[in-house]
């Protein structure tokens, strides 16, 4: 009997010793990742895309057994807890607090829209929970010295910066003159201010190519764009750049068209190809150039693969929200694998030093800047008649040549 007990003890020690390290931090049954998304309210459409993207990434990773965590010597399945923040920043903060304190999630995935991300990232930083998002681009989010916030959307001044790069490309191709006079207007929010700053910075950096002749903000929900457009007309600009939400974009562009205004290039920043705007503007949206974080027609392999599987899963073409949501989840999963642990500080450090390629962001590389925000270029698209949209920049992703300048007969 004593021999049996001794044998069992030896057996137990020999089996348990590889787990001795892990026994200090027992392996969880699941890796729990939390997020709050706008599933109802003003941003519900976009929030819905993020949810679908997260679920697609989740299904993929669990199909292979989960994430390999070296610390525990095995793959651990992943589960998401996703709450509805009702498109409200205050509710968003409350949901992330709940995820951290009550649900005790391991890590965070991001929400959508800059105001909400700006608000709830405070919670991630407070609890020191690594947070990866594809839904908040405002530079202010990453200018607060926070160490646990990582964003896959380049900031808005990069949007206008990419448009300036594209115009430089067109100038070198002899399609646009030098210097170009630019009238830039933007909504009176941090988004609009950043966009206009990007244009000013681009012009200051290349005075032989660009000159800003009008730089003006306007109030949200503009009712009558005539006075603003009069100013644009009076400025004598060659190019009209604006940053506006869909509702203001359609209000301004309708009046622009009715007044018979003309510029060599027209852009509303990230707005342009979305269905709601094309439906509201008809031919008035033709030839408008937009800069965005991703497009379903991007030819690189990761983008094509994602577009195919998303369409198979949901029977619809993905928009950038879904692509960046999916990529956020994958980047977080990869960080866990690379860190080899669920220890938040180590995952955080891994994210900070991450360099992943090929990925479906423009440029193919995910590498966060010192402030936690990616600094990749945008992809530039142009609307064509009959509802088509083409990619015109960067050259390695372009699907067709841009129509520059805008035809006068438009």
């Amino acid at each position, binding site marked *: 009997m004593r021999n049996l007990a001794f044998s069992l003890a030896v057996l137990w020690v020999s089996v348990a010793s590889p787990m001795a390290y892990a026994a200090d931090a027992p392996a969880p049954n699941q890796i729990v990742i939390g997020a709050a998304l706008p599933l*109802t309210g003003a941003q519900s459409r976009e929030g819905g895309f993020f949810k679908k993207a997260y679920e697609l990434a989740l299904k993929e990773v669990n199909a292979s057994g989960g994430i390999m965590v070296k610390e525990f010597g095995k793959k651990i399945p992943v589960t998401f807890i996703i709450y509805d923040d009702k498109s409200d920043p205050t509710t968003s903060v409350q949901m992330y607090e709940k995820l951290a304190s009550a649900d005790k999630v391991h890590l965070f995935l991001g929400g959508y829209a800059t105001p909400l991300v700006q608000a709830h990232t405070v919670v991630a930083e407070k609890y020191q929970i690594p947070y990866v998002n594809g839904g908040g681009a405002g530079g202010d989010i990453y200018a607060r010295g926070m160490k646990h916030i990582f964003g896959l959307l380049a900031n808005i001044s990069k949007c206008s910066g990419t448009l300036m790069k594209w115009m430089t490309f067109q100038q070198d191709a002899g399609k646009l003159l030098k210097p170009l006079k630019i009238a830039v207007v933007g909504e009176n929010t941090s988004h609009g201010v950043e966009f206009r700053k990007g244009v000013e910075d681009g012009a200051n950096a290349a005075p032989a190519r660009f000159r800003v002749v009008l730089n003006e903000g306007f109030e949200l929900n503009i009712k009558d764009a005539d006075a603003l457009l009069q100013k644009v007309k009076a400025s004598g600009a060659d190019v009209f750049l604006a940053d506006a939400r869909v509702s203001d974009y359609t209000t301004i562009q309708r009046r622009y068209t009715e007044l018979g205004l003309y510029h060599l290039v027209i852009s509303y920043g990230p707005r342009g190809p979305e269905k709601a705007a094309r439906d509201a503007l*008809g031919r008035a949206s033709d030839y408008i150039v937009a800069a965005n974080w991703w497009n379903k027609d991007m030819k690189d392999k990761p983008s094509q693969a994602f577009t195919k599987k998303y369409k198979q899963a949901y029977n619809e073409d993905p928009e950038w929200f879904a692509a960046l949501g999916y990529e956020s989840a994958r980047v977080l999963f990869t960080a866990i694998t690379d860190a080899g642990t669920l220890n938040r500080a180590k995952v955080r450090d891994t994210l900070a030093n991450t360099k992943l390629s090929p990925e479906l962001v423009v440029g193919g590389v995910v590498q966060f800047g010192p402030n936690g925000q990616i600094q990749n270029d945008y992809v530039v698209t142009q609307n064509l008649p009959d509802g088509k949209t083409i990619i015109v920049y960067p050259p390695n992703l372009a699907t067709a040549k841009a129509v520059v300048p805008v035809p006068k007969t438009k």
Partner: protein
Amino acid sequence: MAAKDFVSLVISAILTAGLYAIMSYGLALIYGVMKIINLAHAGVIMLSAYMTFWLVTTYHVNPFLAPLIVMPTFFLVGLAMQRIFIRPITGAPPIASLLLLFGVWLIMQNVAYLIFSGDTRSIFTEYTLLTIKVADIPLSLNRLFVFAVGIVVLVALQLFLSRTYPGRAIRALAADSEAASLVGINTGRISMLAFGLGISLAALAGSLMSLIYTFDPDFGRSHLLKSFCIVVLGGVESIIGVALGSLVLALAEAFSVVWLRATLQDFVSFALLVLVLLVLPNGLIGLFRGRTH
């Protein structure tokens, strides 16, 4: 600024004033008669925009004729609202109706999110980008139509309020509800009529605005605030005052953008409101009534 651009700006402001006036008539009527600030005004604007969208896209109703269906529908909705929500709290402190109608607005919004989602909608027809040139100044057909309807509504309302029994009864009720009751006016029925009429005017605004702006369940919120300014600016109990207030506001906004900065547009609206209240507490119409007397 070139003369042509100046004229174009003035015309544009006048057309915008027509839109502002239509947006505000309903609010002014309900407040004038019942001393109720109808916060559900924004919700009605939003729902009538959706109803117009549904009529145009599903039944191919001409968008210029859709208000003929929307207005009577919402008149009945207004009668029901008055019966169900307002009548039970008659005599309660004003805060009760304010909060009640705010709650009704939130319900309207949330129901709209559930049914229509947050997607931005628009009505795009063969008329949408059409313009008519007058002295080489392009005028949007949609905006001209809205302005014309605004004028028709102004005249019709004035005639209704001054030449018909229900209209005079509404004015009597607005002036003194006790005296109106004493002279035999059925105040309950007239209140219901006024509320129904106010709601139908808000619905007309929403139906016409859907031709010009995109909309979602949050549509109407920023218009409500502007309507308040206009009603107070013009004079809370005067339809002509509303039209006058709309014109002054539209012109002030347009020229503030040109001569100052576009970001000061809303500031100018509210600054004008405060100024008028300090100098002319009865609104702009009080200035003319004062001079007449």
